[in-house]
């Protein structure tokens, strides 16, 4: 059964309770990142390949996603996106923070990760998902405008 970005975020929230062990908390931190990643993916797929990106790549990797957002070549997606210069920087830095936290969760097993770290990652993910939704709505409103002339 297919899932979506919200399902990943819901999984993260459901697995961040006070009784969760660290393995589960780490999984929640990781899923929160992927929830944000997948929330942004439909938009990022519409952006041109970044200057340092590989145009033959079959999927958009973590680094390429951030580079596309940072370059913000949105003219072909929606002209009003161009004015979101601060939001795109915020988005880049928020996703970078989520990614670094995910790297800690998945790879730095000697480090410790607790519920506060994970709760924060989930709150951060919710913020990114809300921005992704705003971008999505803006793009779709343009499509509606075009459809109805």
């Amino acid at each position, binding site marked *: 059964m297919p899932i979506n970005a919200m399902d990943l975020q819901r999984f993260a*929230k*459901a697995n*961040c*309770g*006070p009784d969760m062990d660290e393995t589960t908390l780490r999984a929640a931190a990781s899923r929160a990142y992927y929830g944000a990643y997948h929330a942004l993916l439909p938009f990022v797929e519409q952006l041109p390949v970044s200057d340092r990106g590989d145009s033959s790549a079959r999927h958009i*990797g*973590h*680094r390429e996603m*951030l*580079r596309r957002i*940072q370059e913000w070549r949105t003219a072909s997606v929606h002209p009003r996106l161009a004015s979101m210069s*601060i*939001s795109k*920087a*915020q988005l*880049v*830095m*928020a996703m*970078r*923070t989520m*990614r*670094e*936290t995910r*790297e*800690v969760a*998945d*790879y*730095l097993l000697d*480090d*410790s*990760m*607790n519920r*506060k*770290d994970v*709760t*924060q990652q*989930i*709150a*951060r993910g*919710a*913020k990114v998902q809300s921005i992704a939704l705003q971008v999505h709505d803006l793009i779709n409103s343009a499509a509606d405008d075009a459809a109805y002339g």
Partner: protein
Amino acid sequence: MTQAAPATNFEPLKKRITDAIAIAPSEFELRQLRSEATKLANADPMGSVELRAMLACIEGDVDEADRLYRGVFGATGNSVERVFRYLMLLAQAGYSARAGAVYREFLTLSELAPQAHERLAKVLGFCGWAAESTMIRQQLVQTGYELENKIFEDISFVASEQEGDDRLPSSITLGALLTDARALSAIGVEDAWVADRVGDAIQFFRSRSTGVMAVRSTAIPHDDGHVGLLVNFYVDQTSEDAAEAEWDLHGFMAERSPDLVDVEDVAFAAIGVQVKESHAN
């Protein structure tokens, strides 16, 4: 060695001023504190000057703070305790670069006791001098000294002067710090660059009256072979409020230090540590 302080109003006033560092006090509050610090001059002249230096720092006049502290050092000798007070003031006020300069000018590692090394490492770590802090810890460990693997009591003193503030995550421990000069070099940044930006971030949180209780920089090996640096600011807020503060911090930093956006592998995060729980579960 702590100098014997005269029995004056110095300590309670210092505490009130220290509490005011993390927030943006009103002009009225500052005027009152300034007046009380000035009144102290008869009973404790050097204490009075030091308190006025602290207030100058809070008001953003770090050059005046420096001039006053140098006057105190010149008159009384630069006691380690007083230098540490100055360092912590600069750290909490977000003047990381100045804190690094003061440490280099007024403290000599070979003359400090091991506990002072550890304390210094904590303060420098709070300022964002992560590699310098790690180097001091590593040298200390090589001498056989056992690091205290506990909460950054000095660094968290904005919110609490008590040891082991249980609002802080257990992950903020000395032993967990991994960042050294080699890691920063792999990322393509230097200690001073990070410290400058950490200072900017602390000033941002101060401008919102958000207490920064601890700062932790962690070098993180990535699955694509790169190395990242995650700087966590532990703030006295709920996770939701901290998420908003972090979003605004990123906007602030994008304008104040646009190169932070350009460096791909450095991330700044706010971690809310307030006991009040979020709606996350």
